[in-house]
């Protein structure tokens, strides 16, 4: 009985993580389309939400578990999963508050690794695999994406240079909608599966499912819905940084960036070399700034992101380890205290974000170096 209650709570926490995954990453697909006006902000997040839902059903290739090959799965208990999720959620919310796009997969992996270390020691982590499958790809993926996007941007401006500026903008805005849709679909395919994997892992840890089982249908459906609703709610703070903060984007750049992101994400998952959607999308947007002559990349903003990426694994691991340590110190009901603390912290962060709100009304306001635009109120909203 006790265990079943824990299991239910872990599933709910996993879906909450999936939700933060969705809304943290809306910007990866839609930031450039919102910034160039190809789609009105609310239409963009709605479309992205629907396509994430569809994408989650498109492929179930990664139906294994996210921890597979990274930690000794024998050491993973329900409490470890809960603590790991807590680490992932806290990091996602903090970076969202700061408007920094950071990888949700890294946050989750970090949380699970931290919790596993606290539970079973550092030897339970497969460090070589962690380096070769997570850390090195994270360093390479933005470079690959930037290369593709810069090439695309250069080609698009070159090909369309004889057209009038307005006609070119019109045409590429249509192309942007298509390419951003592909990124949304790819995101649903990639990221929803990570939570499916976590819930399946929890079900196996609890003995509900046999080891090696695939995700049951209700798991697939609930994960697809959670990521889709999260996407629709829209992490406006992150969208703003990606669409306005990094590069001033025009529609040819937007189309090149989204096409590069979609291609690189889909190719990497089909070649079994899993890359973070966020790292790819950010690399693409920087590439679209590099590929256009005279465009400015705000390296200060990019540097802030890169710094956050370096801290994603260790910080979420620390939170995961702390949560696991706390749960172990208290005993059987420790996991409840963890989840209560998680809810309280989430509420605090949410309140802080409300204090200087970014939403569909001010997402495109002029970039003045801060995530939340200065309060000049409706007069500037044109």
């Amino acid at each position, binding site marked *: 009985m006790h265990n079943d209650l824990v299991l239910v709570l872990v599933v709910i926490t996993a879906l909450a993580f999936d939700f933060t995954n969705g809304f943290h990453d809306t910007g990866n697909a839609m930031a450039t389309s919102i910034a160039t006006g190809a789609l009105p902000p609310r239409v963009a997040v709605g479309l992205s939400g629907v396509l994430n839902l569809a994408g989650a059903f498109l492929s179930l290739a990664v139906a294994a578990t996210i921890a597979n090959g990274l930690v000794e799965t024998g050491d993973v208990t329900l409490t470890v999963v809960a603590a790991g999720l807590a680490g992932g959620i806290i990091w996602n919310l903090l970076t969202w508050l700061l408007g920094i796009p950071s990888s949700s997969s890294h946050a989750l992996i970090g949380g699970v690794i931290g919790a596993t270390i606290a539970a079973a020691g550092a030897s339970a982590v497969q460090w070589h695999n962690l380096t070769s499958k997570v850390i090195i790809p994270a360093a390479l993926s933005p470079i690959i994406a930037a290369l593709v996007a810069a090439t*695309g941007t250069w080609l*698009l401006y070159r*090909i369309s240079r004889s057209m*009038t500026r307005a*006609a070119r903008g*019109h045409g590429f805005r249509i192309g942007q909608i298509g390419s951003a849709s592909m990124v949304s679909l790819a995101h649903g395919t990639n990221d929803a599966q990570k939570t499916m994997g976590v819930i399946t892992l929890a079900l196996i840890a609890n003995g509900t499912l046999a080891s090696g089982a695939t995700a049951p249908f209700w798991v697939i459906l609930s994960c697809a819905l959670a990521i889709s609703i999260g996407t629709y709610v829209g992490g406006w703070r992150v969208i703003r940084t990606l669409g306005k903060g990094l590069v001033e984007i025009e529609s040819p750049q937007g*189309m090149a960036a989204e096409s590069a992101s979609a291609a690189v994400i*889909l*190719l990497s998952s089909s070649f079994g*070399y899993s890359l973070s959607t966020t790292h790819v999308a950010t690399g693409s947007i920087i590439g679209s700034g590099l590929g256009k002559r005279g465009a400015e990349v705000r390296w200060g903003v990019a540097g802030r992101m890169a710094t956050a990426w370096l801290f994603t694994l260790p910080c979420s691991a620390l939170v995961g380890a702390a949560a696991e340590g706390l749960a172990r110190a208290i005993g059987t009901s420790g996991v409840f205290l963890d989840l209560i603390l998680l809810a309280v912290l989430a509420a605090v962060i949410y309140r802080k974000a409300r204090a200087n709100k970014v939403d569909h009304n001010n997402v495109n306001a002029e970039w003045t170096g801060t995530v939340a635009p200065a309060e000049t109120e409706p007069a500037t909203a044109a």
Partner: protein
Amino acid sequence: MNSWINFAAIGKILVFGLIAGAGLPALFAIGMLSLSRGAKARTAGADSDVVVGGSVAGMVVAAVCFLVVLAAIAWSLYEIYKIGHPAPAK
């Protein structure tokens, strides 16, 4: 293959990424450019956002370009679906 860096996978992602991620949008741009050929766009003025120029040959080229882009997208979605839903083992 290096045990730290999977060069084979990275190489493939880069090559196919350039073809699909930069080549397809470039094809879309060529289609758009062909579509804009013709009298209508020339007389419309510098501020016009009219893309369709009215040349029949241009429209045909544009249609071919757009169809190839759509076909490539459809094919890639089918491939992903196939990976995700393997046929039952015989």
